[in-house]
Structures are given as C-alpha cells and as structure tokens.
C-alpha cells in the first residue's frame, strides 16, 4: 500500500492527469497477466510433447544410466550396485569390436544403397509420362508393408532352396546359401532393408527435385551446361537440405535395426550379422544382464548423438539454400 501512495506524487509531478497516471500501473499489470496467460497456454500446448519426451525418452535414458551401474538378476529379483563393472566389461568383451564392425558395415551399406537407389529412382520417376503414378506407388508400397511380414517373405526367398536360388538355377547359376554364409548373409540383410525403405527416401527426393526451379536448369542449359553438369552443380546443391535430412534419418534408422536380424539370421552365421542393437537385446533379454545391456544402450546413444552432431556441423559445408 505504501508503494502506491509513494508513487502518486511522482506521477502528478510528471504533469500527467491523475486519471492517466493512475491507469499506467494496471496496464502494465494487465500486460504481465496477459503475457503470463499466453505463456501458460503455450506451455499447455507443448505439454503433451514435453510429457511424452520426458516419459519415453528422458526417463528411460536416466534409468539406463542408473542401471548401467547396477546388475539386475531378474530371476532372483536382486539388484545390486556394481560401480563401473559393466563399463569395464565393455572394454574387455571380445565380441564388442566385431559387433561394432558389423554395425558399421550394415550402416554404411544401407546408407549408400538406400540413398543411392532412392536418388536414382527419384530422378527416373521425376517426369511427366503416362503411368508414372503407378511406378511411384509400386516403389513406395514396401514402406507401408509390415516389417516382420516383409522380412519373413524375404527369409523364404533367400533360403538355399528358396525363390532367389530357384530363379538363378533357371539361368544355370548355382546360387549361394544366402543367409548361411558370412558375406552373403550381411549383404542379404542390407538389401532386404534397402528395398523395404527406399520408397520413403525416394518420395522425399522426388519432392525436393520437383521443387528445383525449372528456369535455373533451363538457364544453365542455355549457357551450354550438359545434363551431368546440371545435375551435379545445380540440382544436387539445390536438394542438399533433403539429402542431409534423409542421411540423418537413414543412419539413425540403420543403427537401430533389429527385427530383420532377429528374423533372418539371428546374428549368424557366427556373429557376422550381430549388430549392436541385437547384441544389446541378447545381453539384456536373453542372458538377463540388464546392467550390461544398459551399458551397450548408452554406447548406442553416444554413437547416434555423435554422428548426428557431426552431420549437423558438416551441413555448413555441403548444404546450400537451407531455409
């Protein structure tokens, strides 16, 4: 109350009418109140997303970090602190290096195969000819098929006496036992996954290609640039934001591959197709080592985080015309 009484002479001294002077503080308060109200509504709008991220991303991440320092015997229902034992196991586990190697091979193969094929398909389908919608739908359709159903069908096709070798036999070729031999097993898993998701990146590329202004490519053509030069020096730089997006999505997705390995090879032959997520699953859910499984999950998190940061930083060098 004293504050209001103290303010009154100052307002009057400023030459303003008492009515006007008395109105300024309430206006400020109203602005503040309105602003607070707007803020609250804003918070409420983002609340579902924030709660979702807290409950399904941040909390599990915190729990994984916590479990990483513990060993949890699910059957005996015991939970004990083991300090850095799981981290030490990570560095002494002879399987970690081959598992990371298999993960790298899978990811590199998938990224090159998926993005390369998606770009080729998008370029081929970026034209106005009769029936083009059919082909676009055809190449996109595997994306909407159930992943496990898709993988099981491919599992039958890739058997030693399966459809692929049957086709090869018709032209006199004795096909390999695709899922039972080291190199062909990894190649098979990569190819199955490339065909499954190539349609999604194809559509993104197609959309980006259709956003390239025709006048730019026409101008280049008038200036004497060939098709390869136009594609390499004009089209690719113009769609580079989409290339960045698809690269990040594909790399992150490739590091999380699980169902295809579980259905097609169960990590074999040997451990040649045991990628990090599958190894993590084995340790946590099959061998009941939830603590060590959590440590492996942290490794996966750090790898994904680092790769995303690196790509995000590199975008400054190779991404153009980013909005």
């Amino acid at each position, binding site marked *: 109350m004293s504050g209001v009484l103290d303010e009154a002479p100052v307002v009057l001294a400023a030459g303003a009418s008492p009515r006007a002077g008395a109105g300024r503080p309430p206006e400020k308060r109203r602005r503040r109140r309105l602003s607070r109200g707007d803020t*609250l509504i804003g918070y409420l709008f983002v609340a579902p997303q924030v709660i979702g991220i807290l409950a399904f991303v941040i909390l599990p991440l915190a729990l994984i970090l916590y479990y990483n320092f513990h060993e949890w015997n*699910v059957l005996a*229902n015991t939970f004990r602190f083991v300090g850095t034992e799981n981290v030490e196991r990570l560095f002494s586990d002879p399987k970690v290096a081959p598992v990371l190697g298999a993960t790298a091979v899978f990811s590199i193969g998938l990224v090159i195969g998926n993005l390369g094929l998606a770009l080729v398909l998008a370029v081929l389908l970026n034209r106005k000819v009769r029936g083009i919608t059919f082909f676009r739908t055809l190449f996109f359709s595997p994306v909407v098929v159930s992943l496990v159903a898709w993988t099981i069908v491919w599992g039958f096709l890739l058997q030693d006496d*399966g459809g692929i070798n049957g086709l090869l036999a018709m032209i006199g070729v004795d096909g390999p*036992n695709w899922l039972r031999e080291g190199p062909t097993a990894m190649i098979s898993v990569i190819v199955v996954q490339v065909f499954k998701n190539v349609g999604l990146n194809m559509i993104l590329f197609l959309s980006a290609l259709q956003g390239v202004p025709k006048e730019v490519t026409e101008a280049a053509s008038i200036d004497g640039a060939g098709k390869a030069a136009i594609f390499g020096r004009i089209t690719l730089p113009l769609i580079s934001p989409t290339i960045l997006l698809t690269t990040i999505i594909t790399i992150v997705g490739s590091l999380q591959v699980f169902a295809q390995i579980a259905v097609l090879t*169960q990590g074999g032959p040997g451990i040649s197709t045991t990628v990090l997520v599958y190894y993590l699953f084995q340790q946590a859910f099959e*061998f009941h080592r939830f603590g060590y499984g959590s440590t492996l999950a942290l490794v996966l998190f750090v790898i994904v985080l680092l790769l995303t940061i690196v790509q995000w930083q590199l975008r400054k060098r190779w991404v153009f015309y980013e909005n």
Partner: protein
Amino acid sequence: MKSAKMLSAAAVIAAASLVFSGCSGSGPSADEPVALRMTVWTSNEAQLALFNEIADAYRADHPEVSSITFDPLDFDSYTTTLTTQLAGGNPPDMAWLLENSAPDFVSSGALVPLDDTLSSTEGYQLDDLSEPATQLWRTEDGDLAAYPFSTSPFVVFANDDLLAAAGQPTAAELEASGQWNWNTLSDIGAKVNAATGKAGFIVRDFEYTQWDYLSTVWNGWGATPWSADGKTCTFDAPEMVDAFTFLHDAAFTKKSMPGPGTTADFFAGDAAFTVTQISRASLLKDSGITSWELLPLPAGPEGEYSVIGQAGLGALAQGKHPEQAADFIAFFTNPENSAKLATYFPPARTSQLTASTLSAANPVLTETQLADVVVPAITSGTVRPSHTGAAEIQQEVRSGLDGLWVADADIAGTLGGVCDAIGPLLEQ
C-alpha cells in the same frame, strides 16, 4: 484468461489423478479377489479348453479366486518373454518352463517350493511322482521347485508311403531284421532322396540352430555336451566328433538329411523319417500319409538309448499370489486332472505310465506302440541337455557350430572352438 485458468486447473487435476492412481496400485489386500495367471506356450484350443475346465472346477471350491487366465506366449521366444514380464513388474503367478531353462529358474529361487503344498493336499499321492522325472526340477536342497507336467519321449515316425515309393523296406521290416540303426537309416534316407527328391530323415526343430535337439542323435554315440557335473565341455570328445561326422556326412555327402537353409516337413509328406516328440502324433491326421510307423530312436554305435523332453509348471515367487498359485498347481496336477492332461502331456505319475492309460489319451497310437516305444522311453530316457546360463551357452554353441555346417568343414577343429567358447561359461 478464464480459459487459461480452466486449462491450468484441468492440467493440475489430471496430473494429480495420475499421481494418485499410480499410488493406488499397491499390493493386494487379504479381502481382494484373487486373479491368477499362468503363462503357457500352447494356443491349441482343445488344450486351453481342458485347462479352463480344470480351472472352473477349482474356482467352484475357491470363491476367493475370481479368475484363472491361461496366457499363451510364442514358443520360440517363450523364456525371453517370461523374463521380460518379470523385469517389467508383470510376473505371472504360474508359468510353464522348458527343460533347458530349468536350472536357471530352479537355482535362482524364482520359484516357490511346492513340496509342502502338494503333500498337504488331500489325495495328491506325491509319492506317485517318478523320481527321475522330478530330478531336473529339484533345488540343491531337494525341494521340488516345479512339477514336471509333461515328460515326452523323442521317437521316430516313418513314412512308409514314401519308403515304398522309393523301393525301400518299411521301417517295421528294418526293425524286424535288426537293422534299426542310424547308419542304415541314413543309407535308406539317401536312397529316398535320390529316388524321389524328398528328404531322408529330419531332426525336427533342429533347423541348424537349435543344436540341443541333436542330443537325440549323439546320445547313440555315447556323447554328451558337457561332463556330468556340468563344469567341463565335452563337445570336442572323440565320440561327439564321430556323431557330428555322421551328421555332416548325412547333410553334405549322402544328402540323407536336408542341408542348412532347406525346409522339409515330415508331416507334409516331405521326408521318410523324422525324429520328434510323441506329442506330434496328432499332426499325422492331416498329413496325408496313409501308412506310417512309430519306432524308438535308432541304435547308435553305443547301442540303444532314449531321450525325453520335459516341461515343468511352477509358481513364481515374484507373483502376486504365490501361495494360491501353488495351491492351484496342486489341484491342476492331482491324480484326476493328471489323467485328463495325459491326453496331451505324458504324465510323471508312475501309476499313469501304462500303455492303457496313454492309449486312452492318444487314440492315434496303438497300445502296442505305446507299450513298446513310449513307456520304455519315458522310464529310461535321458533328459535333453540343460545348464545354468542356458541362453548364453545356446547362443555360443549355435554360433560356433555355424562353422561346421559347410561342405568342407573342419569338424574336430570346429568342435574344439565350441569348447573354447563355452568353457568359461560352464565353469561359472
């Protein structure tokens, strides 16, 4: 403003209700109705109907039990799903357990001992349980941690239609002439394959990954995967090398056994012989095979032998109602219900291990077949291999044996590698 306040109030109420609803999920009180859940790996409607019939009879005398649910899980990932339910704080009250996971469940204290409940149940006749059948399910202290509700022997089914089409003697003729052994079976299988393009013999469910099913073969060579105390790997022992040499020869040289990555189903008429459990006899009905024979496992170099698969039923210590669960198991497996369950699961009660009891439950099989093949196998069979840390050992051996299933494999070297891989696990 008004709407903002209302929204805020709604959010606070929603959050509070979430918190309070979470807090209200405390343990059951004594007066609360008991809901029991049993995880099983069958989704066979007739079997589930029988379980529900037994459960209804139990609930009639136990009004405090509001429901008994049988929860079918996928067989291939059964143990993984069960342990995930335990880890997720959603343990079943009772669970079927496979013999290969028995040591882990029994030794960890995950199961409630059943002895007191079973022995105090009127008319249970605990002494009637076959001692060899319960061995795997006892703790170090001798407590019965799970009831062996199914003791199913491995046998050979022969497709006489296919043998006749290939111009080969029937299985019964082979047995009568004293030639029922693995070498003859493989030779005839190779001739069937050459004549018809179909498979000679199959070890069902092995599929070049579930290697423990091969115990139905290597036992004939007197081989075991590890020593009796479970501490030493014996995959590299000469008798095991000989057994795997036989299998490798069958798959890659004689072609009497389908190679890796090749599918063949005996019950679709794709093979002359299959090694499988007796419970698969029900598949013969729709197989299209008109003439078939049931035989014991063929003799190996070490003579005749038999192998059994087991399934246990236990009450989970982490379940909400372990005592009530143990009580229901006592009812589920009492003499009367055990006889009903024998329709699908060969019992561990010695009084019910007779050809006449089993033939009533297995109309596909004759009393002679049951008396000559099934009963002797149950009473004298060796249980499929099991060990603590079974999942990791299973994975390591599978991974190691992948090197053996190629045409130019170094069999002894590969089996030595298997021992290098599992040796440290066995010592734990």
